[in-house]
């Protein structure tokens, strides 16, 4: 038996109140008020598909010691066209460099494509489990319907052949150049065709046919489907498809439009993760990725799901929520307005790629060292121990700090220095295991940061260099009082 062995998700805690955004544009686009219900997930300025993927993967791997053979990442918003994004995810997870990595892109199906490829790899008997992650952070023009409807998120699965919580029944894929929207290479925004055509031509014609073929091929009777996750590009399309297929109304999963928004290549995976949170042994799950065709995957939940440790997936992420009522902040984070950033923002040194490579485990994996004599964990690793009572000179054992409990020792919020989100919060972060360093603080609430506060280290964008197109990633401290996470 092969299938899903673990899952996790990540939704940024920022939630844009759609009504606030719609009201801002009501003078020119009163029609947007029709979309003004609920909220959408909104990435922080220092989050992108890659950082969200890392966080979803950490939640998926939490507490499990497994041998990963490959990492696959599906997205339509990979931060890099040429620098393997899945490779950065693997490095942030501090996986051995013998892991195989691949990016899946080019369609909203990229997430399910990565999932199918991962299952195929496991099915082919390759060594180790496979991590399949899907993430998207799609930008949209100000005052567009997409700006309101899109959301940012990631979801991840490990696929393997033992301790399977959802058995893979197989998949069926259809590829058709149905272009309801597209984004050419180098373009920041989607170009969108009329939604009525999408509904009539796809959701009432070829898509139900494709899914029906898939279910038949997989031997799944429509009436036996317990959860139907169709990554619909717009609300209220899945129910009609289910009805045409004979899938029960109450099997149609929540499309998460009111709480998260449409999360692109991550959406099918996010819905599947949400379904797994509440799945019972024996249930049949059907998930459909949509985009220039479709991928249909079917799973049967096994009794092993009841043994799976509690995890951060969709429910926990939905609970970790900060409503954003300031639409200007959303615009700034998504770079859709030209802001005055101040002269201090001009300082932007070149990124030394050779230094970045030498220190890749430090920068991407948050790996420091542990002194072989006194045992003090320290960051960064050095050739001489930092302990004033030791100073032993010998190469250190690698020591990863990413999951170590830590607290804020000193801090300030700084209105002078440049940051995309003033005031810049940073402070001395002290790890309970030993070790400390001056770190950026992210996901803060103004007036809520304090000495002694517990933090979780998170992988984020440290800075962007628009002149050279570089994105510098590193780890930051997220206060746990606001980030209620494991």
């Amino acid at each position, binding site marked *: 038996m092969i299938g899903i062995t673990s899952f996790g998700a990540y939704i940024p805690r920022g939630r844009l109140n759609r009504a606030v955004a719609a009201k801002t544009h009501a003078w020119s686009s009163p029609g947007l008020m029709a979309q003004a219900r609920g909220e959408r997930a909104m990435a922080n300025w220092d989050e992108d598909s890659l950082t969200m993927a890392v966080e979803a993967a950490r939640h998926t791997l939490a507490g499990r010691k497994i041998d990963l053979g490959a990492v696959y990442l599906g997205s339509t918003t990979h931060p890099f066209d040429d620098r393997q994004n899945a490779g950065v995810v693997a490095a942030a997870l501090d996986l051995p460099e013998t892991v195989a990595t691949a990016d899946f892109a080019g369609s909203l199906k990229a997430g399910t494509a990565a999932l199918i490829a991962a299952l195929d790899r496991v099915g082919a008997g390759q060594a180790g489990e496979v991590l399949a992650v899907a993430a998207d952070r799609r930008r949209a023009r100000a005052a567009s319907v997409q700006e309101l409807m899109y959301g940012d998120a990631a979801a991840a699965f490990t696929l393997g052949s033992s301790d399977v919580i959802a058995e893979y029944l197989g998949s069926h894929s259809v590829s058709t150049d149905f272009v309801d929207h597209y984004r050419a290479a180098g373009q920041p925004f989607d170009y969108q065709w009329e939604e009525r055509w999408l509904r009539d031509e796809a959701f009432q014609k070829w898509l139900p046919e494709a899914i029906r073929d898939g279910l038949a091929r997989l031997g799944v009777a429509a009436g036996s489907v317990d959860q139907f996750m169709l990554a619909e590009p717009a609300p209220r399309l899945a129910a009609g498809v289910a009805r045409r297929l004979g899938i029960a109304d109450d099997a149609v999963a929540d499309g998460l439009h009111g709480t998260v928004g449409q999360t692109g290549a991550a959406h099918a995976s996010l819905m599947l993760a949400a379904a797994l949170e509440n799945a019972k042994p024996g249930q049949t799950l059907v998930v459909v990725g949509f985009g220039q065709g479709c991928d249909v995957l079917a799973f049967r939940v096994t009794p092993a799901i009841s043994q799976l440790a509690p995890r951060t997936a969709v429910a926990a992420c939905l609970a970790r929520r900060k409503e954003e009522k300031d639409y200007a902040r959303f615009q700034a984070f998504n770079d859709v307005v030209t802001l005055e950033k101040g002269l201090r923002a001009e300082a932007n040194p070149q990124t030394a790629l050779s230094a970045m490579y030498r*220190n890749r485990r430090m920068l991407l994996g948050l790996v420091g060292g542990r002194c072989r004599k006194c045992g003090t964990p320290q960051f960064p690793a050095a050739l001489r121990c930092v302990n004033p009572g030791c100073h032993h000179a010998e190469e250190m054992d690698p020591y990863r700090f990413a999951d170590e409990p830590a607290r804020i020792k000193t801090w300030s919020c700084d209105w*002078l*220095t440049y940051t995309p989100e003033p005031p810049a919060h940073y402070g001395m972060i002290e790890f309970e295991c030993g070790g400390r360093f*001056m770190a950026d603080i992210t996901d803060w609430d103004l007036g809520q940061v304090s000495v002694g506060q517990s933090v979780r280290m998170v992988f984020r964008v440290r800075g962007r260099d628009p002149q050279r197109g570089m994105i510098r990633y590193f780890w930051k401290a997220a206060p746990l009082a606001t980030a209620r996470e494991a």
Partner: protein
Amino acid sequence: MAEGIRDKVAILGMGCSRFGERWDMGAEELMEEAFSEALADAGIEPRQIGAAWLGSCMDEVNIGKSATPASVALRLDNIPVTRVENYCATGTEAFRGAVYAVAAGACDIALAIGVEKLKDTGYGGLPGLEIGSMPPLWWPNMSAPGVFAQVASAYMERYKVPRDTLKRALAEISAKSHVNGVKNPKAHLRKPVSCDAIMGAPMIAEPLGLFDCCGVSDGSACAIVTTPEIARSLGKHPDQLVTVKALQLALSNGAEGGYNDWDGSYILTTRKAAQRAYAEAGIKKPREELSMFEVHDCFSITELVTMEDLGLSEDGGAVKDVMDGFYNADGKIPCQIDGGLKCFGHPIGASGIRMIYEMYLQLQGRAGERQLQDPRYGLTHNLGGFPHQNVVGISIVGHYR
């Protein structure tokens, strides 16, 4: 066993430019302003100088690299000139180079000159520093107020000082320096400011407001040093001779920023350098023996903890001493009698020498309106870098013998 520097080197002359937003001048003209005053004070010609040290920190703005800008601007006689840089402790570093050269007998007369032209950046506050290849990849975008504000968070935590109490003491520190600065014609900021205005100023880095931060200034200061014997041979009266009693430097080795011991509420290196400096100068009870001092008050909180780090206030006792006026001009040990970095201003490379300049004037009875009565020892404290990773230079000067 090293003998130390005590009384081996005398100050022959000093000079200091007016500090401030010197839109009219570049670094070259600022250096000349300080240099010509020092030459006249020393009573020597430039060709008598055997070696020189230039201190400048921000070579990214104006001054450029190497010591050639000083050698060229001052038309020095093809002598050895060395540029030194050690963050905001650069001035003391230049002074140290000159003093040690004389003490070693490498030259008879040496020059230390510090200069900074900060106001060619187009914005307020300190310019950003180029910090190498690795730090931008993992350090926060730290500003100077942002890192020193960290000390305040730790101080409040350690001594359970309420924020309002600390803010009030910090305001008193800044207000005192503003009062002192009024009497200094070379100071950048020369207006008294009320504690209420200080506490109500816009926030820069929690809990530091605008008036908790020192002036960002252009300026230059210099010192000409020699041996006490040569100073006498050049006509200086022994009673007027000011000599170096101690000159110490202490640098972080990564412990504060990387090892879980230091609590962030004090500056470790100040404590180390102060102990060594007192020993070198033969000072046993600094709170009784010091007459005056200039500390690196880049921010009010830095001045507060430095009182404790120098052993003048007890740990946790600086708030009370400040509120009691212990460090005011009419207090027991006046601090920042010239206005300090806060109001004299802070042209980085010049500041360490500027502090010594004030102690020198006071010891010679030439401090005008702000002259203190019969000072014996003056201490300067020059701090560069971050509270968790820094450079501290301390000098003690006094009358010869």
